[in-house]
């Protein structure tokens, strides 16, 4: 699409006209979000050359090479991509279980006062316990049992994959994601307008339909927000759990292990991967929030 310059007016192939000011504004607005990272990298470059010590601060270039060759094996720890994938798989499974339990429970707790009172005291006792505080107990319970143990698979390629999905890890992720999702779901259902529920009842909705067609859609924006927060926490908990002794794969393991080998470049490459994966997952949810639930923000104003 050619841009033709004519009397200070740009015109593209679609005949849409931009003034020079518009284009200037565009470039500026595109540039703003990358300014801070560029500054950080610059700072890193300067500091790395000043310090000149690979263990304290490796150069931008060394870390960059690792990031751009994600499938390369790293000193017998598996590849960067492989470890990220193992961690992601753990999160996806543990997180899905948390969502499947927390959402229905949250909906009935939000709707029926009696059920709320039944569960709330009990759940409040466990809420303040940090997910990582569960690790010793969970190790005692599950040890190194994994999905492979559950399915009775002991050899082959499948074993390697399934053996990486340890119950202890899944449990930690579950705890991390469970509470944000539960709390937001309860909150979302509790704030559904009484008139909406009454309207549905007058229009002939059954109790079941009120749940499926009124409460859940009405609470969905809140549920999605909880799922977004829960995913962030689950990801953080997992990486921390993987850093604990006994872990043999995953991005958290890779970082800790690289540290013991004084490979700070791998540590930083791993950290950047964690950040990028977390941000990408968050972005997906934000997209869903914006696209599907724009009605909420506008309906509230």
């Amino acid at each position, binding site marked *: 699409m050619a841009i033709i310059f004519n009397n200070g007016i740009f015109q593209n192939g679609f005949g849409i006209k931009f003034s020079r000011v518009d284009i200037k504004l565009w470039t500026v607005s595109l540039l703003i979000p990358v300014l801070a990272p560029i500054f950080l990298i610059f700072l890193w470059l300067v500091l790395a050359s000043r310090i000149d010590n690979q263990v304290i601060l490796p150069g931008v270039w060394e870390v960059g090479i690792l990031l751009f060759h994600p499938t390369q094996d790293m000193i017998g720890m598996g590849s960067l991509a492989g470890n990220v994938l193992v961690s992601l798989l753990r999160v996806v499974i543990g997180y899905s279980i948390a969502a499947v339990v927390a959402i229905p429970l949250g909906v009935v707790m939000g709707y029926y006062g009696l059920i709320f009172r039944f569960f709330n005291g009990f759940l409040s006792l466990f809420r303040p316990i940090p997910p990582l505080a569960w690790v010793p107990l969970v190790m005692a319970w599950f040890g190194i049992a994994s999905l492979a143990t559950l399915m009775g698979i002991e050899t082959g390629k499948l074993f390697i994959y399934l053996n990486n999905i340890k119950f202890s890890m899944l449990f930690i992720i579950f705890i991390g994601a469970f509470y944000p999702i539960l709390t937001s779901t309860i909150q979302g259902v509790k704030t559904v307008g009484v008139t909406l529920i009454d309207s549905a*009842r007058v*229009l002939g909705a059954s109790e079941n339909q009120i749940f499926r067609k009124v409460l859940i859609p009405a609470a969905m924006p809140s549920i999605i927000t909880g799922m977004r927060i829960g995913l962030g926490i689950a990801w953080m908990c997992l990486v921390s759990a993987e850093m604990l002794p006994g872990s043999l794969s995953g991005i958290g393991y890779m970082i800790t292990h690289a540290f013991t080998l004084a490979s700070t470049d791998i540590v930083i490459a791993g950290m950047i991967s964690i950040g990028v994966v977390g941000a990408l997952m968050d972005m997906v949810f934000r997209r869903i929030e914006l696209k599907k639930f724009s009605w909420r923000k506008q309906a509230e104003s």
Partner: protein
Amino acid sequence: MNEESLEIIGIQGLSKTFTTQKGNQFLAVDKINLKIFKNSFTCIVGPSGCGKSTILRITAGLEQASTGTVHYAASPVTKPCAEIGLVFQEYSLFPWMTVLDNVAAGPEFAKVDKKKRRHDAMDYLFMVKMEAFKDSYPHELSGGMRQRVAIARALANEPDVLLMDEPFGALDAHTRILLQQELLRVWELTHKTIVLVTHSVDEAVFLADEILVMSSHPGEIRKIIQVDMERPRSRANPKFGALTDDILRELGNGMVKSQP
């Protein structure tokens, strides 16, 4: 007009007591007796808190009477039924649904096939002149438009009786008058039985065949007034003003009585 004398809703000895948060008993409405005739337009007027909405909610099956009964045709009303629709003052449309899907919600609950219910819903959108907004969301509409959609949604469920709980209470004066005219048009088109609760005497005199004047603490029906003015009614008609005055005086008495 022999058909008009057919009783469609009968309320006998209806009382409703609420328990307040402090545990006190509060008598909202007391010993209401009332007959609504088929195809009639009835308005209930009264001061705030006289229990007029409570009568409507019990009639719709949303709440239970403490004593007394409500009958639709010959059967007692204890839960919501398709024959009785209810239009709320506001915030009743499902915000995540388009206008068309909102109107088709009743048939959706009744598991009517998607294509058919959307097709039928369109007819009702035409009736309230909202067909151009079928794909809009409620938050994109003005208050008056939303109430048009709410009316269409209630009608799409094909009830015999349409209960309306201050349906125009949240609208500005101009929109309110416009929608009153529209409601009369829809009523004449569909031959529904309408019971409309309002605190606007003007609205009641403009719309109703019969006006029930209520007093509060406890809610009682003080007077039943037949309105024998030809439609369309003009607010400039001296009869209109005289009747409005009468009712306001009646309400004034009710208020004096209720003061300690």
